[in-house]
């Protein structure tokens, strides 16, 4: 669109007019490239520097502080039962992410209907797999992809997320490093990286905090001791 081009050049002309007095565009390009490549971390709060058991403890206490729920599991085999317990009686529609771990699980035949795929509006409970957890703030990191449809994170009333304890990293920057490493190709980012810290909330009415605004009213984390194992389909 030529209109778009004109506006673009007007905007950039104004910006150069402001910046060229300080130095050339070539110098700016060099600086910007260097800065982006260096990916220097800012100050990391002490609470974002825990390791080992202290890190897992911090993650758990932060999740609880923001009204999330934690259920500790020993292995993936315990996922279906834990999901059914967390979902409760009034959850006829359960949606699981088409992730190898969930696909391979031994789901009960009833009474709830269990479907795999992206969420639809009838789903009461969504189950997904977190890529990581961040100890600093009790934040889950979910990456969208074929095994992790993003709608599961937001449409159902209850969001159940499987997290492996060895996927808990101290801080956000550690999560970025791992995302970059896992996607060593050209495009680093999936469509969405979702940081989720507690269940949905709002304080829009008289500044009083209410849980379950548009997203899930409950966030339940199934924390599995150990390392994520990608069982084949």
């Amino acid at each position, binding site marked *: 669109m030529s209109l778009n081009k004109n*506006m673009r050049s007007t905007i950039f002309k*104004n910006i150069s007019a402001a910046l060229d007095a300080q130095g050339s565009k070539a110098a700016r390009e060099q600086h910007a490239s260097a800065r982006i490549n260096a990916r220097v971390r800012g100050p990391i709060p002490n609470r974002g520097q825990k390791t080992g058991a202290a890190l897992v403890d911090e993650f758990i206490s932060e999740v609880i502080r923001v009204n999330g729920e934690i259920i500790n599991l020993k292995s993936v085999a315990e996922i279906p039962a834990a999901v059914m317990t967390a979902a409760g009686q009034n959850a006829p529609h359960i949606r699981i992410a088409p992730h190898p771990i969930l696909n391979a699980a031994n789901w009960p035949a009833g009474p709830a209907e269990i479907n795999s795929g992206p969420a639809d509006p009838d789903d009461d409970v969504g189950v997904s797999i977190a890529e990581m957890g961040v100890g600093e703030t009790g934040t889950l990191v979910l990456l969208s992809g074929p095994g992790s449809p993003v709608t599961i994170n937001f449409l159902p009333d209850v969001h159940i997320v499987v997290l492996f304890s060895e996927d808990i990293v101290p801080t956000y920057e550690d999560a970025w490093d791992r995302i970059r490493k896992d996607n060593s190709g050209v*495009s680093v980012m999936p469509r969405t990286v979702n*940081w989720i810290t507690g269940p949905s909330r709002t304080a829009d*009415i008289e500044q009083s905090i209410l849980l379950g605004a548009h997203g899930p009213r409950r966030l339940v984390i199934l924390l599995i001791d150990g390392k994520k194992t990608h069982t084949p389909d």
Partner: protein
Amino acid sequence: MSHKKANLFTYDHPTCHNFSANAHEALLDKNLQTQLSRITREGFQQKRFDAIHRLDEGEFDLLRDRAQEIKTDALANLDVYLERFEQNVTAAGGKVHWAASANDAREIILKICQDANAKTVTKGKSMVSEEIGLNQYLEQNGMRPVETDLGEYILQLRDEPPSHIIAPAFHLAKSEVEDVFRRHHGDLDPARDISQPAQLLNEARQVLRGDFISADVGITGANMLVAETGTALIVTNEGNGDLTQSLPPVHIALSSIEKIVPTLEDASTLLRVLARSATGQDVTVYTTFFTGPARPADLDGPKEFHLVLLDNGRSKTLGSEFSEALRCIRCGACMNHCPVFGSVGGHAYGWVYPGPIGSVLTPLMVGIDEAHTLPDASTLCGRCQAVCPVRIPLPELLRRHRVKSFTAGKAGWLTRVGLRLWSFVASRPKLYHAIASFKVRAWKIISGKRGYISYVPFIGGWTNTRDMPSPQGKTFMDLWKQKNK
């Protein structure tokens, strides 16, 4: 039927020029005053304070220093970071649109909606969309925009602009929310109790579900744009922004050029100060980083992704004495800590961005003729600068506006002549002391022995509500000379 007050602004009809009249009404508005009174000890101020103190001593200030450095660097290299961002969005399959003015942005967005044959357009909260009057424009052109943030939704029903940049409907009492739901939600049972916030929330949640599902286009804002990866991000608590961007086949993110940051690390640092400064959370419930449209193998997400980047004067501001205002990350801390905002709320400021940062930005966006009142709407107490996460020198920027406005002759005849006379005298010490000496004695005689005067001509603004303490009787300079002869 519109129930908004007659004097409320719209994006194209600011009421900044009426600031004192707006403020007068706001001071008499009991509901508003109740809501404002919550900010201090139970609300935003206390929550920010608590959040900062959950960090170790000194950490928040280190984060603020870094946040300031990041935004300064981003602005000092704005064009090259924007180019990098555009390349990366394009590589991910998205399209970047450049909008020089508010009208350009509106037209671009309408065109995308029309190309998608859209009827219902869901919207996440976006102050930039308020800045360009997007809803009105889409409605005029046959679309049905639906605000999905709870506060924005309430205001859309009331046909009212936000009064705060992060808590758009904080000025309303729950009874006012119930009232507007009862008027607009046709099938709401009159017998059903929706007097409490939780019931009001449930009602809105149910009504908006349908719109989320049926929307043809979803429009969100973007709090930051990451040059490194072509990623934009939004921070929300409700989850409406995510439903808005993930359910419809087309996602439009509307943002402005100064929101750029170099890297994901830089974004992370800014996020550490943003929520703490805004709502007093360590991080918002949902922080969503989005890059381009759905990937081929994805099972959901939008097929099309557009990023509309608004300038609207920002590229001109960059080279001006107000460039530091472009560091703003829209946390709202300045207004939450401003004694003037705390007294009159957001609508009195008469345009989209209220409070101290609004008083700096609005004159740049709507012009000094309309908005010269705003830089004066401050005691220059400096609390805004003290809490700003990117350390914008707001009082200094307000002073610079005052200089512009004084130079442009906006100050009023009496002030200008008064200051000229005063400076003439105050730069002639002998004359000054003679006049002061005479004035004080006269004043003393008039005020008698009571210690104060209840009315002084020309300064009724003071004496209407406050006594004016009387002078002691002679000037210090006279007495000192007398004593040290």
